[in-house]
């Protein structure tokens, strides 16, 4: 049964649009799936391999700009952003890896944070290429949401499958070994630099897809949005932390919660504009009480609810 869970979820998701959901609900679903993709991608590097990146907006934004610029400068369909983003994002990840993967712990985190910001500032200032803060506007393919829904659902299914395949392979064992103890891993014959680079590159390319999709779906991007530290890099981390680090379903659960929470909080009077503050509070609570996220600590959660039930 458990083996078929992903297929069942996929089938259920595939028939959802047939229910005639409102455009707003479809929009939320699309965002949830898109953030699941970003979360699953980040999880490969941050969750399994233990290299916490605060700079994944670099890859998200690059993917988005590949799609946007393909349409804006080359007059190609913005869907070419998906294949086009692969070489650009992979090359960026390799160069970035060369620099930051030598660093460990907090130094690695700070370096990735800086690189995300470098990408944003570069995009803001390369005005001939990117139009800077004016942003890029493209013609969207569909007015209806259903097409976008199926595209991102396909990307998500592919991502889920790739992550699962990797995590259960030799590479997956190596990723986790590196997370648990880099020196031990190295002395057990694991080329830690190589496998960290692989994790970073695969993670980056998938994040780039998420960004390319965002461009296609939203029709407008600017550097402040797609290279955003708070709204992209940190939100990606939150999705994984809330859902469950190094679990298959964690990023999906996290994406559901974060997207819905953002919608709810933003619509509240008075506190709406402070939604990032509330996210921060939520993150602290999660780290203290459910350090493995909702999926990772589901036993703890179940016990909590049982106790309450018994007391009543």
């Amino acid at each position, binding site marked *: 049964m458990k083996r078929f869970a992903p297929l069942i979820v996929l089938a259920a998701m595939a028939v959802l649009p047939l229910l005639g959901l409102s455009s707003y609900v479809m929009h939320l679903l699309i965002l949830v799936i898109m953030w699941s993709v970003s979360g699953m991608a980040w999880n490969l590097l941050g969750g399994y391999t233990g290299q916490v990146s605060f700079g994944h907006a670099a890859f998200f934004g690059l993917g988005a700009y590949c799609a946007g610029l393909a349409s804006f400068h080359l007059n190609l369909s913005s869907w070419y952003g998906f294949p086009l983003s692969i070489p650009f994002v992979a090359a960026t990840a390799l160069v970035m890896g060369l620099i930051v993967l030598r660093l460990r712990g907090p130094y690695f985190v700070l370096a990735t944070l800086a690189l995300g910001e470098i990408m944003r500032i570069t995009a803001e200032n390369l005005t001939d290429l990117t139009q800077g803060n004016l942003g890029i506007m493209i013609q969207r393919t569909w007015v209806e949401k259903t097409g976008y829904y199926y595209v991102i659902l396909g990307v998500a299914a592919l991502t889920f499958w790739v992550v699962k395949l990797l995590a259960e392979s*030799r590479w997956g*064992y190596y990723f986790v070994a590196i997370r*648990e103890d880099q020196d*031990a*891993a*190295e*002395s057990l*014959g*694991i080329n830690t630099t190589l496998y960290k680079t692989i994790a970073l590159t695969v993670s980056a390319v998938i994040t780039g897809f998420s960004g390319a999709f965002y461009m296609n779906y939203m029709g407008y991007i600017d550097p402040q949005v797609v290279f955003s530290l708070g709204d992209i890099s940190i939100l990606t981390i939150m999705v994984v932390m809330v859902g469950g680090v190094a679990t298959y379903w964690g990023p999906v659960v996290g994406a559901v919660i974060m997207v819905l929470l953002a919608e709810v909080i933003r619509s509240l009077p008075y506190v709406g504009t402070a939604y990032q503050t509330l996210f921060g509070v939520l993150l602290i609570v999660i780290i203290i009480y459910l350090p493995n996220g909702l999926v990772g600590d589901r036993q703890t959660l179940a016990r909590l609810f049982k106790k309450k039930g018994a007391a009543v």
Partner: protein
Amino acid sequence: MALLTVDKVSMFFGGLAALSNISFSVEQGEILALIGPNGAGKTTLFNVVNGFYKPSRGEVRFKDRTVSGLKPHQICRLGVARTFQVVKPLQRMSVLDNVIASAFLRSRTKAGAERRALEILEFTGLMEDRAMISKGLPLGKRKRLEIARALATEPELILLDESFAGLNPAELDVSIEIIKGIKKKGVTIMIIEHHMKVIMSISDRIVVLNYGQKIAEGTPAEISANPLVVEAYLGEAEGA
């Protein structure tokens, strides 16, 4: 032919000579013990052999090939595995997964790696604990897990860094049997140990370090009779 040759190796940290001009060799199939007081440079020497440090001077040869300067994972692939004095289990992985991760070095398939890992868990007496998350293992078994992981890389030379420290007498006996079993398989062993009874009973030869210098080398009988060693490390018989 010597399996491993340490040739005039010196290791400096700033102005401090952690190792100065150390030379010795390890013969195929023997158990060579490395002893000496705390801070003598034993673990530093392991770190040089295993590739964590590149020696400041001199070189290390494994099977007549210069290995100093290679990365630890390359040296491991050539056939040198090690354990750590301060154990480094992959904490949030099960005991079995710890060993599988190492066994993947010589096995392309997961089934092959798992089969190899199970054999090794049987050999090291960790079979019943295979599903346990290694964080929860008691120290004695964690020390054995270190050995199991190193064995899973199918080494020709295994470096054991204080694999007996902190064990109770019963665990000690189990570990001694494991070491003897490793030797029987034809794996050469280099071991750092403070437990003199163990050292004297299992080792073929002993190298003694003191303040980063080699002060003696010989059979257990020669070493226990060497006045330099007695003064530096073993202690005077009448004083004890």
